């Protein structure tokens, strides 16, 4: 007789049990979701029993979350604890091949585990791993982190950062920058021809500009190398992979450069179609459309980065060029280039990790300033053709759905009332708009807070967790001195605890069912995060 013992990593007493901090939730992989969607009322695992002879054993794993019977939860109730909570590790947690502030990280991980967080997010930088020369990868520091996370009994969502960071300064790989010195057209350029060295221009995705390889090939090699280096973690500790899609990892053009000073009204941003290759694509497109003259450059009457949208006529609320046939021509092209770029990267990730039990994520920015105007300049310059008259996030959601990827939306801590009035900004409306598009296409949404922070941010995050804008997980950015500071950390503890203790006055929350008492629920919930294996 054999009894297999499967135990979780946490060897110590399971604190979650007593605390009730644990978050329980529903986490199915792509594969399972598909199964379920076909057969909603019966879980259909392959039968290992009947295939015993073939030697193939198929294990399907299901996790459970809703304690409530399906029938009862059919009302649109939602528990906060369905949202898996992650915290981001410091951006520069690894430099060179070593882990920075090892002790702090390890203490932090333990604290987060005890708090009942699902896991942490780890940014892995192209410029750190493939720093020296093409194809030479150094994963050592990141492997250390993965091991630490595994030991702490946490999950890991890695972000593959194919971009640079300005604070802390983490540039692109040296060899890429070297190439960029002579071929500045591998970077996005603004109207002044100033290159953006924070990531490669999407126009070179499939041009062999990197020592004979295309950036897509280089990204793919990177992903493959990551996959083999972390094979022991992928699917177990590593449950999510976020594919970097552009500046700050987001699917967008670098239409705003540098940081807006707080308290100043952000500008409209600038179109970034001025690198040679983008211009070439534009020209081709214009010629194909029979409008060769439209392909000579970007809109001449668009304002510059920090100028107000009203500084020129392109974004004018009424009669602006954006509404003209030319505007439609340009904006359609500009946004479709971005979506095609996202599609390329996400389908690359999906195919590389197709046999791995991980979720693939991509991040879409929340360009919420000027959302109150008709033309939404910030969104347009960032590459989202979303205006008062055109729903632009449909194509984005479709693209994510097509690749079975989940979407990360930042800025969940931003509320309308703290925005500068002059910027006609509405993070909440925009979020709802994107959320609707995603829900329509079945794209699950993971949230993030903005790095700049916001007043009453935690409150706003919770509000979003209760809405349909957020239904997968939440990644809190980020661990560091400020995070653990006495003025912040207790608030965070409280935030996490409250997630498991729905406020009684909130009508949107489920009522406790049946005989379960408060104490019971504490006990049973912790159990819910344990996944059952059946085969």
């Amino acid at each position, binding site marked *: 007789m054999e009894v297999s013992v499967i135990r979780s990593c946490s060897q110590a007493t399971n604190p979650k049990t007593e605390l009730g901090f644990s978050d329980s939730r529903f986490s199915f992989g792509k594969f399972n979701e598909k199964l379920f969607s076909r057969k909603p009322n019966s879980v259909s695992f392959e039968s290992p029993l009947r295939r015993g002879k073939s030697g193939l054993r198929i*294990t399907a794993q299901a996790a459970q979350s809703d304690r409530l019977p399906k029938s009862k939860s059919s009302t649109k109730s939602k528990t906060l604890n369905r949202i898996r909570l992650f915290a981001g590790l410091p951006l520069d947690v690894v430099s060179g091949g070593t882990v920075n502030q090892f002790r702090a990280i390890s*203490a932090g991980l333990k*604290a987060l585990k005890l708090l009942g967080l699902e896991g942490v997010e780890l940014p892995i930088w192209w410029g750190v791993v493939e720093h020296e020369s093409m194809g030479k990868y150094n994963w050592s520091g990141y492997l250390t982190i993965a091991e630490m996370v595994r030991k702490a009994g946490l999950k890991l969502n890695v972000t593959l950062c194919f971009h640079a960071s300005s604070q802390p300064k983490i540039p692109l790989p040296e060899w890429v920058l070297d190439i960029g010195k002579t071929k500045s057209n591998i970077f996005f350029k603004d109207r*002044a021809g*100033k290159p953006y060295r924070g990531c490669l221009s999407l126009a070179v995705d499939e041009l062999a500009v990197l020592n004979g390889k295309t950036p897509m090939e280089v990204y793919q090699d990177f992903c493959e190398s990551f996959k083999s280096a972390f094979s022991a973690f992928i699917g177990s500790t590593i449950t999510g992979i976020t594919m970097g899609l552009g500046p700050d990892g987001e699917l967008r053009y670098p239409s705003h450069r540098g940081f807006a000073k707080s308290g100043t009204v952000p500008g409209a941003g600038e179109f970034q179609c001025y690198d040679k290759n983008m211009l070439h694509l534009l020209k081709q497109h214009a010629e194909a459309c029979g409008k060769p003259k439209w392909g000579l450059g970007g809109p001449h009457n668009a304002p510059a980065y920090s100028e107000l949208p009203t500084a020129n006529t392109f974004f004018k609320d009424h009669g602006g060029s954006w509404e003209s046939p030319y505007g439609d021509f340009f904006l359609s092209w500009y946004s479709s280039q971005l979506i095609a770029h996202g599609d390329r990267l996400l389908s690359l990730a999906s195919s590389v990790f197709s046999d791995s039990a991980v979720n693939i994520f991509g991040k879409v920015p929340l360009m919420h300033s000027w959302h109150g105007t008709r033309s939404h300049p910030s969104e347009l310059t960032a590459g989202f053709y979303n205006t008062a008259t055109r729903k632009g996030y449909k194509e984005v959601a479709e693209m994510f759905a097509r690749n079975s990827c989940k979407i990360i939306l930042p800025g969940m801590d931003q509320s309308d009332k703290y925005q500068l009035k002059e910027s006609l900004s509405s993070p909440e409306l925009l979020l709802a708009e994107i959320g609707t598009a995603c829900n329509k296409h079945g794209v699950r949404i993971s949230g993030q807070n903005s790095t700049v922070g916001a007043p009453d941010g935690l409150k706003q995050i919770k509000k979003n967790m209760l809405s349909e804008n957020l239904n997968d997980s939440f990644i809190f950015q980020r661990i560091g*001195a400020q995070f653990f500071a006495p003025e912040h950390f207790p608030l965070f503890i409280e935030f996490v605890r409250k997630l498991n203790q729905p406020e009684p006055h909130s009508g949107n929350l489920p009522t406790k069912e049946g005989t379960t008492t408060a104490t019971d629920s504490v006990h049973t919930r912790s159990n819910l995060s344990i996944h059952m294996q059946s085969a």
Partner: protein
Amino acid sequence: MATLAVGSLLQNPRLSSPRGQKLLLNLKPLRSLDLDCSPHRKLLCSRGACFSNSNPCGKFYIVKASSTDTAPIDTFSSADILYEQTFPVNRIEKVEGKLLIRLDQSKDQLNWRLTIGCSLSGKWILHWGVSYVGDTGSEWDQPPQDMWPHGSIPIKDYAIETPFKKPSKDDTFHEVKIDFNPSSAIEAIHFILKDEETGASYQHKGRDFRVSLVNYLEDDGNMIHAKSSFGKWPDAVEQLPNMVLKAEASCDSKNENRRLEGFYEEQPIVKEVSVGNMVNVAIRKFPDAANIVLHLETDIPGDVVVHWGVCRDDAKTWEIPAVPYPPETTVFRNKALRTLLQPTGNGSRALFTLDEKLDGFLFVLKLDANSWVNFQGNDFYIPLSSARSVKGQSDSESEETSGKAHTDGIINEIRNLVSGLNSEKSLQTKVKEAKESILNEIEKLAAEAYSIFRSSTPSYPEEDSDADDAEPTINISSGTGSGFEILCQGFNWESNKSGRWYMELKEKASEISSLGFTVIWLPPPTESVSSEGYMPKDLYNLNSRYGTIDELKDLVKSLHGVGLKVLGDVVLNHRCAHYQNQNGVWNIFGGRLNWDDRAVVGDDPHFQGRGNKSSGDNFHAAPNIDHSQDFVRKDLIEWLCWLREEIGYDGWRLDFVRGFWGGYVKDYLDASEPYFAVGEYWDSLSYTYGEMDHNQDAHRQRIVDWINATNGTAGAFDVTSKGILHSALERREYWRLLDQKGKPPGVVGWWPSRAVTFIENHDTGSTQGHWRFPGGKEMQGYAYILTHPGTPAVFYDHIVSHHRSEIGALISLRNRNKIHCRSIVEIVKAERDVYAATIDDRVAVKIGPGYYEPPSGPQRWSLALEGYDYKVWEASS
């Protein structure tokens, strides 16, 4: 019996089929005793224990002995405690027990009952489901509601979970009873066992347990009671743990009816229990003794061997110390010593006598053949040297204490903020206590993380380029390029003479680039009435005295190849006509831009234009173009865009921009979107009785006005600075280099980012010499403009002269110190014969024959360059 452990398998959120397979291959045998040791766990098991934040690197805070939960060591009461440390040790012990499965008929004979029991303590949960007859897949279904034992909760739609209950309070035995109707279509009950305390789950041979309720099924391997055996059931469940009831007879019934038979089976089950132990190390010294005594004690049960050595350096190289050794010590392979600890009442201990001069004591504990206890993957390290130092240096001790007090302060702060949370819920005291201890733990960890993060959080200076973007009124734009541009004027008045200037310059491309220039200005490219190119005729004809259009393209390509941006010299103010009008005046244009006299300004009688009045000064040698005409502007924009596209120019040098309004320039630049643009706004400085005025504000104001009119899209040559330098250098009036507000007196003092500083060009110098820079003082001029803010421009003649290497050195100094167009200049001296300034606190410069040395300050200046009447220093720190 093979017991397998799979770390983290259970937390895998989605195991799709290929994955599961893979993971199962990762099964690794569990060592019989798995040991782990980390400081924080100790907190959980014994909160009263006093120990400091241990550090994996082996440095420990020194904590004076205080009440600990270790056994007091009376023998040392007279000795000083130099060091004491308690290491928590977490071991995983295996506890064996039994899983009992019983199927029998309930008393009413109608229903049947499946009882699953477990003899081990723990919070057991039965996770279970059913399958129906005729189901083809292996999936579970949720049991019908009437089967649910009390307290069950549904798991989605395919399973439920039922907690085990104790039949009586004192029992360690737990069970779940499931009643069901045998006539239902249920084919089998499937379950796995979970221990809520540890998160472990228990399966049967890697699959779920399966109790078949019909017996005509094939044996799938994981069926319990596979042989259809039946047994008599004891009525009293309480007796189960002690009973081993095996089916006495097994009849391989192949009946195909649904006759259920009761059975009872036991399965061994092994649970891993985390046990908290500790290792306490104390170092004491008797007064007047040469040796120190290290006391090691642990509460780990059983025989414990200390595998130990000492070290004399930071490298922690093990070596065997001199005798004496404690009893029961053996030498292990000449590398280490092994000492069996002597049992005490609740553990074991040993005393080690060590030489005071040693650096450290290293050890690991060996529990049996395969089980070792180490400290977070490293050897335990006890610093003997710090024990030594404590004795003499009470200062360091109090420092440590205050550090600890600080951490405590943070913890208290956090505690105060979270306190009150607990009172919200009326939870059982026990739960409350557990919560309290975990909160406590979280707070400690957070405080530790905070103190480290805070001490090592670097401050990031805001980047200059970012600051650019944030400037509200100024675009980052063609007015400045990157801000770090250094311009080379790539021709002189004679360059057209050879007819192959483009080819000649191409030869020099890499040389110019290697000097450190970023931008090069090429001569006017169009067909021109004058060979120098400033009297353009057909704008689209780019065959000129400098070379053909193809040679030009080739040159631009080469220049780009060496990383230079290329400025085209465009003459927009005037244009020479192809044809005469009816009055014989040349004002009708040909070529692609075949404008008529409407394109010519109306206020220049020489050319009888029909256009509007000029928006600027007139250049009298050729028809001045009326930029107020839409078609003119449209054509010029188209031309500029064509030049950008066709030739690859990156930007413009705009000739004679005094001739038309700067606002039109803005239009041209907005449309052609150059990387960099600079305009020539050259008019006379103010003189009084032939002597240049000190105050040239009016002059620079006119230039600034023009830049303003372009909305800052272009820079302008800083003619003011050149003029003032003339006087200052020629007449030894270096005081002129300071304006009334303490700034540089040229455009560079007012709008440095738009000032293109220069000392000579093709007009002022070269073979024309309209306004030549004082001879022999050129290098002072370059020392000034190449160290100061603004965008400096170097004239071609100078880089092919003997000044070349000095200029190159200044350029590389500028680049090295990242001086840019907005660098901050602080003028420290402006006297009759000497001018001195520091720039960005990184570079100091003096020009003039007078004496100046930068003060010895924190920058530690070192002389970088020196030439005739100038010196440049760099800060070396």
